[in-house]
């Protein structure tokens, strides 16, 4: 029973929710409830714990009864009492679950998703659909058994999910995701038949074999820790002449095992796909997760190679997405991972999804130089030689390169890292110089992006170059934002007849706010501003509406030339 009658709002005890400022058009949209058994799926641990404790007590009581430890109560009364208490507790919990379930309702209208919850402390929350940063469908193991799924709707509030619907039937969750994405994309939908919205097709780009994931875990830092610990324990044991030291190995073993397990659990069966709705990722061993990151939501991206992965030429791709927040827990870290382990070709394929236009003629060579190169090949600018003592190992690798669409930042010798920030995603940037830096005439540039695992930085670069980059980047970011794609990625956009993206004048004056660039300005940015329909924008002469992209048709998978070798991009050595 997922659909409650539309009269839920009139239920006694439920405050009228007109105060939120809903439009009349939204009145007809039915309020719905999550699946009936979801509290059970959510609270199963508590239930099991209570059953365990009560059950154990009762079970032990069976054996203690003979010894008379139970006290003066006759056998039958004690059992009855225990049974009654157990029943009462279970009923109480069930009632709590039921009330919580009953008072949690959600609604998806043309522009908002709303959730009302709580009995005593009520919460009414609404989030704008076009603010979506990412949508996840999560299936914990128990929910998977029941065929249920949790839908997470992320907006840019760094961490906490704006809307969590736990749990829906898997099909309902998928349909809801498709609806939300279609509306967020700005696709005109038939209001009479909202069920007509189909899920956008997707094309698989990268698939990881279990062997690769296991190999990546084996070659991860956990193995190094294990080896070092093993040697240390062995040496200690020999020196002290006692085997008791070996017991200290157990917690290390547990920790390393946990690391392996989480690497396996979050990388197992990893699939990355492209669709008109953005990048899709699905993975998971016991708990499965399907993430969708709409176009233009990736704020920064990093490609990291740990020392042992160099043996196999593997990389990990992590991203900052505004909705995911700082990757504190293992689960968050997995969410912010676009590719847990991939070859250079797969990394380039993922890069092509995130950055369809690399802004350079030689993307493959450039990104390869960023991933493994050193010195000033492919337009990289590195730390000057005079400052090599500030970074004796990394100075030849620390560097940056600018393309017309993104900034590449390279660093690290043992842990090689390449960070890519699209120009239009820079929030702010700062230039820093300490006394030592000043002595060597170098500066460090730091880019601020939304919270996440990636922190873009240009280490110790020549001060004059740094200032050029600082000012240049500020200008490039401003220009990229002006010509940036609309947040509603399927909205029809107006394009000037002679499309000359490189030559459009850049308005600079503070008074120049009229849309003279070739793309109409994004109609939404700050929470206070309402969406203006694109049709209301008066087209200036020479502009023609471009037909909106169709969500139903799968566009070509973007990839960088030279194209990856035949056999598809997902040439996984299986």
């Amino acid at each position, binding site marked *: 029973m997922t659909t409650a009658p539309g009269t839920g709002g009139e239920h006694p005890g439920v405050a009228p929710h007109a105060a939120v400022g809903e439009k009349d058009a939204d009145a007809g949209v039915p309020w719905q409830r999550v699946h009936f058994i979801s509290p059970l799926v959510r609270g199963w641990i508590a239930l099991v714990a209570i059953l365990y404790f009560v059950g154990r007590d009762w079970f032990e009581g069976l054996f203690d009864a003979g010894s008379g430890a139970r006290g003066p109560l006759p056998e039958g009364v004690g059992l009855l009492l225990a049974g009654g208490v157990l029943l009462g507790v279970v009923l109480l919990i069930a009632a709590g679950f039921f009330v919580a379930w009953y008072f949690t309702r959600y609604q998806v209208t043309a522009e908002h998703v709303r959730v009302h919850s709580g009995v005593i402390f009520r919460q009414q929350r609404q989030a704008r659909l076009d603010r979506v*940063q990412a949508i996840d469908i999560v299936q914990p193991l128990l929910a998977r058994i029941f065929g249920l799924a949790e839908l997470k709707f992320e907006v*840019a509030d*760094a961490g906490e999910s704006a809307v969590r619907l736990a749990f829906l039937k898997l099909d309902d969750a998928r349909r809801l995701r498709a609806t939300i994405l279609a509306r967020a994309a700005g696709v005109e939908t038939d209001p009479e038949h909202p069920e007509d919205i189909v899920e956008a097709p997707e094309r698989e780009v990268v698939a990881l074999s279990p062997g690769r994931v296991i190999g990546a875990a084996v070659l991860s830092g956990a193995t190094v820790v294990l080896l070092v610990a093993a040697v240390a324990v062995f040496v200690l044991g020999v020196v002290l002449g006692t085997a008791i030291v070996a017991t200290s190995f157990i917690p290390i073993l547990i920790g390393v095992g946990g690391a392996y397990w989480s690497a396996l659990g979050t990388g197992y069966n990893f699939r990355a796909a492209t669709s008109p709705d953005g990048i899709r990722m699905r993975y998971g061993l016991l708990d499965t997760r399907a993430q969708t990151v709409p176009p*233009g*939501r990736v*704020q920064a991206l990093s490609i990291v190679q740990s020392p042992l992965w160099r043996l196999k030429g593997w990389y990990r791709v992590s991203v900052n997405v*505004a909705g995911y927040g700082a990757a504190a827990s293992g689960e968050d870290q997995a969410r912010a991972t676009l590719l847990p382990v991939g070859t250079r070709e797969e990394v380039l394929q993922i890069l092509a999804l995130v950055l369809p236009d690399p802004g350079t003629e030689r993307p493959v060579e450039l990104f390869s130089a960023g991933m493994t190169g050193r010195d000033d090949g492919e337009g990289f600018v590195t730390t000057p030689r005079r400052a090599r003592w500030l970074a004796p190992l990394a100075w030849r690798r620390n560097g940056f390169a600018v393309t017309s669409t993104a900034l590449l930042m390279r660093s690290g010798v043992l842990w090689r890292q390449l960070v890519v920030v699209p120009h*239009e*995603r*820079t*929030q*702010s*940037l*700062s*230039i*820093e*110089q*300490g*006394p030592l830096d*000043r002595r060597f005439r170098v*500066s460090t540039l*730091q880019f*601020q*992006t*939304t*919270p996440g695992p990636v*922190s873009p930085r240009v280490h110790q670069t020549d*001060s004059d170059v740094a*200032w050029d980059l*600082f*000012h240049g980047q*500020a*200008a490039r*970011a*401003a220009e990229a*934002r*002006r010509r*940036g794609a609309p*947040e509603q990625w399927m909205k029809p956009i107006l394009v000037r007849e002679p499309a000359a993206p490189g030559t459009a004048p850049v308005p*600079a*004056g*503070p008074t120049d*706010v009229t849309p003279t660039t070739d793309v109409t300005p*994004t109609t*939404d*940015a*700050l929470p206070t*501003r309402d969406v203006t329909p694109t049709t209301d924008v008066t087209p200036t002469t020479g502009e023609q509406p471009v037909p909106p992209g169709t969500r139903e048709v799968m566009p070509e998978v973007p990839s960088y030339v030279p194209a990856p070798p035949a056999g598809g991009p997902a040439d996984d050595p299986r």
Partner: protein
Amino acid sequence: MRSEPIDPSGLEWSRVSPRYLRVRILGWLLGSLVWLVIASVPLVLRLTGVWDSFPPGWVVWALPALVLVGAVWRGLLLPRQVAAIGYAERDDDLLVRQGVFFQRTMVVPYGRMQYVDIAVGPLQRAFGICTLKLHTASPATNALIPGLPTEEGTRLREQLSARGESRLAGL
């Protein structure tokens, strides 16, 4: 204001109110006094004979001396630190600079600003100054302009909001 090596050329920096220096000095005096009192506790205990012989003599003297030297050093640095704070409004972005030894200049595009904060503490209110803070979608954006005269802070806030609205962009 004095030009620093890290300054970009051709920029007119606005500097903060000289009253901010007085606020900082007051705060510095208060803070230094508290620390000095805390650091002098062992010395007083030794001199009054409550503690005998345990902390060696040089330790009880060195502790407040060190705190004193540190306080004097920070005090001497204060005018330069305040003088190093500057901001510049450009067409598309706001520049904020700070720091004497560890210099930092930050550029915040108007279109990236999510909101602007003005904070006034009791001491700041007494001196008629305020602190302006810019927030973007990144918590790491630590663009802070302390020590603005209240009317200048209000003007800047209105100006930034207006410019932010006309140049707004998504995330």
